[in-house]
């Protein structure tokens, strides 16, 4: 709880001004905490006389953390392929495992997985647990959750990483809950803290407006989902050797209360968006659906994928799967062309890892220019057609 040292408190009111929740007030010359306090710690940071302190009671978690060792990556597999984020996680997982002087293992769950384990070894895994069963052909939270929970309970890894994909963000929280483990969502950076070997997990919050670093000091495994396209994969090395462990779960653990009746791949464009080398994106500045058609044309000419800011999606010019940003997809193409996008932080967090960013916008003060490799201040309706023309001539040459 928040403890106020009324001897030290000078009643300056800085804490009152800082508190978002209106939970702290100066009364009778010193601060008084009210019911709205969420223990966010803002007031503690601003107090100049150190009169405020958040008291953490002794941990109630009884995990013997020394018994847990090794780094695990959940290797997502769907519709016949390993998700690219799994390969990226083996990259960062290798680094973390080496720092902890522990093995890196992958867990592969699905059906008809022949040869896929070797693939994960080539990208950095020392060991791959393969759980291959027809009952696991479709993803369900029950069956995948049971399998991963059981494996983790048996082998006690110190860290479990998974992609922050639809599948990862759906079932990993169930696994964490049943393991009584801390879980950090949608991380963009992972490091080992030197003094105690804890995993420092950094993630955006408040729509990307702030970053927070999180640790789980008393529980194991330390679990994190990681945003796709943030971590760098290792170079594939077929000479790398690893152990493939075939796992046969109890049949009862493969039963799911959710039946998948049909699994449909929709709109190949959206599937390709996160893997495209060139992405052309449009925003509010395109004014209407007709304006947005220019984006599709430019993308076609360049052989790229179409993306959109939230404003364009909310206006109904393009469906949600094309949305890039905090609540949409993250992309990291070679070239990202932002047309008529002002560049709210929520959009920037989804595309700022692109190699080259081009911004075209009427407003010279638009924040999109802060991340642009090349910026053009101008009318999208003038500039974009000229660009289309120019690249068309090139294609025809």
């Amino acid at each position, binding site marked *: *709880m928040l403890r106020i040292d009324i001897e030290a408190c000078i009643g300056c009111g800085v804490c009152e001004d*800082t508190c*978002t*929740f209106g939970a702290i007030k100066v009364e009778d010359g010193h601060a008084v905490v009210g*019911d709205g306090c*969420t223990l*966010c710690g*803002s007031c503690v*940071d601003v107090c100049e006389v150190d009169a405020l302190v958040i008291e953490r009671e002794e941990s109630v978690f009884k995990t013997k953390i020394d018994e847990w060792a090794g780094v695990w990556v959940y290797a997502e597999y769907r519709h016949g392929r390993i998700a690219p984020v799994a390969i990226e996680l083996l990259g960062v997982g290798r680094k973390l495992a080496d720092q902890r002087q522990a093995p890196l293992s992958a867990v592969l769950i699905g059906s008809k997985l022949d040869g896929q384990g070797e693939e994960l070894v080539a990208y950095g895994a020392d060991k791959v647990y393969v759980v291959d069963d027809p009952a696991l052909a479709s993803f369900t*939270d029950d069956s995948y959750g049971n399998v991963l929970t059981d494996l983790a309970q048996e082998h006690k890894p110190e860290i479990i990483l998974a992609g922050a*994909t*639809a*599948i990862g*963000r*759906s079932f990993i*929280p*169930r696994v964490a*809950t049943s393991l*009584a483990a*801390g879980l*950090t*969502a*949608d991380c963009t950076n992972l490091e080992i803290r030197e003094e105690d070997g804890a995993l*420092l997990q950094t993630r*955006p*919050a*408040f*729509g*990307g*407006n*702030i*970053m*927070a670093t*999180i640790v789980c000091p008393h529980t194991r495994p330390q679990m994190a989902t990681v945003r796709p396209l943030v971590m760098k994969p290792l170079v594939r090395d077929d000479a790398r050797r690893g152990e493939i462990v075939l796992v046969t779960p109890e049949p009862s653990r493969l039963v*799911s*209360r*959710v*039946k*998948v009746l*049909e*699994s449909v791949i929709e709109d190949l464009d*959206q599937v390709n968006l996160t893997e495209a080398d060139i992405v052309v994106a449009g925003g509010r500045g395109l004014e209407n659906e007709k304006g947005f058609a220019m984006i599709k044309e430019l993308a076609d000419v360049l052989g790229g994928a179409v993306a959109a800011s939230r404003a364009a999606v909310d206006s109904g010019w393009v469906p*949600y799967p094309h949305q890039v940003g905090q*609540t949409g997809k993250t992309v990291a193409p*070679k*070239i990202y062309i932002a047309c008529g996008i002002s560049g*709210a*932080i929520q959009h920037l967090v989804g595309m700022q890892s692109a190699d*080259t960013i*081009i911004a075209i916008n009427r407003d010279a003060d638009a924040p999109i220019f*802060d*991340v*642009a*490799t*090349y*910026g053009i201040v*101008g009318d999208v309706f003038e500039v974009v057609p*000229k660009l289309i023309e*120019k690249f068309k001539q*090139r294609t025809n040459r």
Partner: protein
Amino acid sequence: MKIIVCVKQVPDAKDVRLDPKTNTLAREGVQSIMNPYDRHALEEAVRIKEQFGGTVTVLSMGPPQAEATLRDAVACGADDAVLVSDRAFAGSDTWATTYTLSQAIKNIGGADLILCGKQAIDGDTAQVGPGLAERMGIPFVAYVRKVNDCAGGSIKAERLMDDGYDAVEVALPALFTVVKEINEPRVPSLKGKMRAKKLEINTLNAVDIEADLDQLGLKGSPTQVVRVFSPELRGERSMLNGSADEQVAQLFDKLEPLL
């Protein structure tokens, strides 16, 4: 059918910034709103009730002022409202939150269907829905974009996936999180607003929900925030100059070698 919708009061995220000098959240004047995704969950619950019958209860865990969000929900069609509020909950991460919510739901008699938004716009974790399902021991479907059929003790629905969608069938009781594509939430009716104003909100504390105090709040949270800071943006900002034609020509020359 008894439906519970979990709603969270959140600061309007687009207004939240970190003060670069003090490194604290500058949320002055930031409005508190109902988490936008929860509004879609509420709307879906009300639609299911209208079509198949039943009751809709909104449940929120938060400080006393979260009552405003519950009244908003009642104005939009919820039948009754429960606020779980206690100083002991302060500092809860998603693990402690799902414990608290599950205790509250057991205390109010459970539900056939629990609906939540896919995530809250302040924390963006998307962990409370699935974690709560696990605590309740019921099946879970994430990212529901359509509820097709809801008769005979099971529900058919579609869940959004990264590469398309899955059509699923699940036996009740179950918990879904919904995406905003699922519906267009209604605006509160005048009658609804009147009802919301008068409705007595059932307020429960840690003792009421028979919670194990060790599992609540900061103490019951495996995760701890150790640092909060502003995101770093790449600062390149190289602007092209000249007429539109000249700028396009320069850009073409820069891009062509990259293609």
